[in-house]
């Protein structure tokens, strides 16, 4: 019950934000040169101005801007994102086809970055000032400063071209006709390099936050109490310190959801993965603004969802937060 209430309240809180986003996107559409009818006419190979007028009236493009905005919003609420100019299908369908790959990539990268960042951060905090800390912190800085597409390319050079361990791109072996578990394994193999590429940057940030957060928590009274009652070091870390040190990490996941989506544009382009990011890139190159805006809209929804889930996890980790609302 409380969770449901929380969910509703969160949803209500994100509505104004969503409205601002939609209005902003609409405005951008107005600023873009040409409109839907221009695109349609170009597709049909040109036509006379009278037909264009007719079509404009049909699509409601002759209405005042406010009325157009209302129509646009109403369509979006129904998840009608219009037609894709290059794929000749509804944008929503195209996006739905591409979404799974991006979600897989993001999920795998997030898991790797979070788990790796936590472990390395704790390790660095335990050995602060000693060589493991220096090594881990230096590596983190390097990962942070490296453009992910370059990581990807160098990964391809080393692991795909020279060692031949992993495929250089694509989501699965085309034409191999794998089914069931074999197909899953094949997809997993194709995702190894992209996941690493996307995850390293985030891993760097997570390990830094985890290290700082761990250092802070380890000095608090309740950790001293836990030690005083004779709990072993591992017990203190796992049962007491970690749970609280994880809070800022969880916040970061929400903050970086959008960043990760943006990063997947580049990574999917490097590895030719048929995901949302690759679709965004293709629609920019081919000037398919309708599709591009649809992707941006769906991404915003995704970010809001991730933030909502993060809030729920937050409440589980720290009951005070849920109770305080």
């Amino acid at each position, binding site marked *: 019950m409380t969770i449901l209430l929380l969910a509703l309240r969160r949803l209500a809180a994100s509505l104004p934000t969503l409205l601002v986003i939609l209005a902003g*996107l609409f405005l951008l559409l107005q600023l873009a040169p040409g409109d839907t009818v221009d695109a349609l006419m170009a597709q049909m190979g040109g036509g006379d101005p009278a037909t264009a007028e007719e079509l404009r009236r049909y699509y409601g493009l002759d209405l005042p801007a406010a009325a157009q905005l209302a129509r646009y919003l109403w369509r979006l609420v129904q998840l009608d994102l219009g037609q894709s100019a290059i794929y000749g299908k509804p944008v929503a369908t195209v996006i739905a086809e591409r979404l799974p790959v991006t979600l897989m990539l993001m999920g795998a990268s997030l898991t790797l970055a979070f788990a790796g960042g936590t472990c390395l951060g704790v390790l660095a905090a335990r050995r602060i000032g000693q060589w493991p800390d220096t090594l881990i912190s230096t590596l983190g800085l390097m990962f942070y400063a490296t*453009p992910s597409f*370059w990581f990807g390319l160098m990964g391809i050079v080393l692991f795909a*071209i020279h060692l031949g361990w992993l495929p250089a791109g694509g989501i699965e072996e085309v034409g191999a006709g794998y089914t069931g578990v074999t197909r899953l394994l094949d997809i997993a193999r194709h995702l190894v390099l992209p996941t690493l590429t996307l995850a390293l940057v985030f891993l760097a940030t997570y390990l830094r936050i985890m290290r700082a957060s761990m250092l802070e928590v380890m000095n608090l009274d309740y950790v001293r109490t836990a030690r005083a009652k004779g709990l072993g070091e591992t017990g203190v870390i796992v049962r007491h310190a970690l749970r609280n040190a994880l809070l800022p990490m969880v916040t970061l996941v929400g903050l970086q959801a959008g960043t990760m*989506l*943006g990063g997947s544009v580049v990574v999917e382009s490097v590895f030719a993965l048929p995901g949302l990011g690759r679709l965004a890139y293709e629609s920019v190159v081919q000037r398919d603004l309708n599709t591009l805006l649809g992707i*941006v809209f769906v991404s915003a929804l995704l970010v809001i969802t991730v933030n909502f889930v993060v809030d729920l996890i937050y409440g589980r980790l720290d009951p005070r937060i849920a109770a305080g609302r």
Partner: protein
Amino acid sequence: MAALARYWRNPAALLGAVLLLLVVAVALAAPVLFPKDPLGLAGRPLQWPFVNPKVWLGTDASGRDIAAQVFHGARVSLLIGLVATVIAIAIGIAVGAVAGFYGGIVDDVLMRVTEAFQTLPNFLLLLVLVAVFGSDITTVTVAIGLVSWPAPARLTRAEFLTLRNREFVQACRVLGMGDARIIAREILPNALPPVIVYASVVMAVAILLESALAFLNLSDPNVASWGNLIGAGRGVLRTQWYVSAIPGVAILVTVLAVSLVGQGLNDALNPRLRGPAPVKTAA
């Protein structure tokens, strides 16, 4: 001055300063060492580095000098990074200051807009802006600035919230000072240091954003940019991987330098307060 002394005692910060100076020197030296157009033909294509002393870093698939492109690329990267950062910080400070100072409905509205920008994936928004307004270097720079302001805005707002009811501000009010003057002359100088330190994060991210755009061929193709060069090297990755590898190192060094200097400044200015780790955006 104590802060400056603390800065120089920090080896990581020192390394950052040295690297940054190196990159700036490279940028300044570019027109002197490579006066010819870096995108012009320099010799036989795909010569490996350290083989031909005339083109010591080799040539790319179109026979252009890689060293010349790397040197001129430093100018482009630093310039885009600096200008985009100035734009982002200026918008951020303006929005954050007004929101934090006035509070209430003004704050609500501005924060909704900020939130909207933070909800939209940075890089996707950048793609939309480039798709709508084109991708010459000015547009790209402004667009990067336009997607990077929310974090500085939040930071400024937080500072203003803690400062706006302090005694010295109340004293100004009693003296009859106008809002604009209190914001700009009294509160802002006190709120500025953390925002300035954060500018290093914005700049690092801006450089990475531009390189990612250029890598995807969506930045200005008529300038020698590191990202352009990496993207061009993709076609010959199988055998001539150095074409992509070399400019990547240049980006890494530059972003590392900017980050280290920022972190060093942060540690030197707030020795007790460990600032938030940079929240990375895109690329």
